């Protein structure tokens, strides 16, 4: 079936540097994408979303880029902080299909 996956399972970044987490999706019909952050013992926390009619969206310290041509999604975190350490998931859905399909998470570790 269709799936969403991440290129790297782990990522270590120096505190203060920028982080880039990548995600490849396979369902060309997907038109809505969400990035979630999951800390240990907690549920996925909404970070930012993007619709397929956009290729970039910015939030507070985060930017999501969408390249529909190659079916690629990325999450950029600026000036990473220790509190950014978590597992990050991308998720996709198709309009009218409510369920989210999650990719394999990337564990982000911030090095002090």
């Amino acid at each position, binding site marked *: 079936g269709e799936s969403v996956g991440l290129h790297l399972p782990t990522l270590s970044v120096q505190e203060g540097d920028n982080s880039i987490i990548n995600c490849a999706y396979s369902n060309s019909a997907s038109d809505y994408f*969400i990035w979630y952050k999951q800390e240990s013992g907690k*549920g996925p926390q909404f970070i930012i*979303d993007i619709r397929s009619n956009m290729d970039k969206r910015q939030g507070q310290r985060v930017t999501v880029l969408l390249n529909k041509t190659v079916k690629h999604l990325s999450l950029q975190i600026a000036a990473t902080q220790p509190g950014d350490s978590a597992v990050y998931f991308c998720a996709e859905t198709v309009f009218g299909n409510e369920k989210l399909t999650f*990719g394999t998470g990337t564990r982000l570790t911030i090095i002090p």
Partner: protein
Amino acid sequence: AAGVIQSPRHLIKEKRETATLKCYPIPRHDTVYWYQQGPGQDPQFLISFYEKMQSDKGSIPDRFSAQQFSDYHSELNMSSLELGDSALYFCASSLGGGYTPIGNQPQHFGDGTRLSIL
């Protein structure tokens, strides 16, 4: 801001027992979703309800059932529990079945119920 509330946070059961997990969505949210997350895995969609009606179904075993009540809270009922059912169970809520006239509405998750089967 109020978030999704799940109870209990932890639950220990034995094989062949039953369990009921509860989910209270964010106020005004009319849609709830259930997901199962195994150790080191991504969440897998189980089932969803919009305005108290089942709206989508994923990889939910026949031993499991769920419903959404008039106050929009939802319960996931699990019977004949197996060792493989040990997992984190998350509930998420959104507005308008995930889509409203102003566009997609993201799902917001609770902190889950950790179910352990002995």
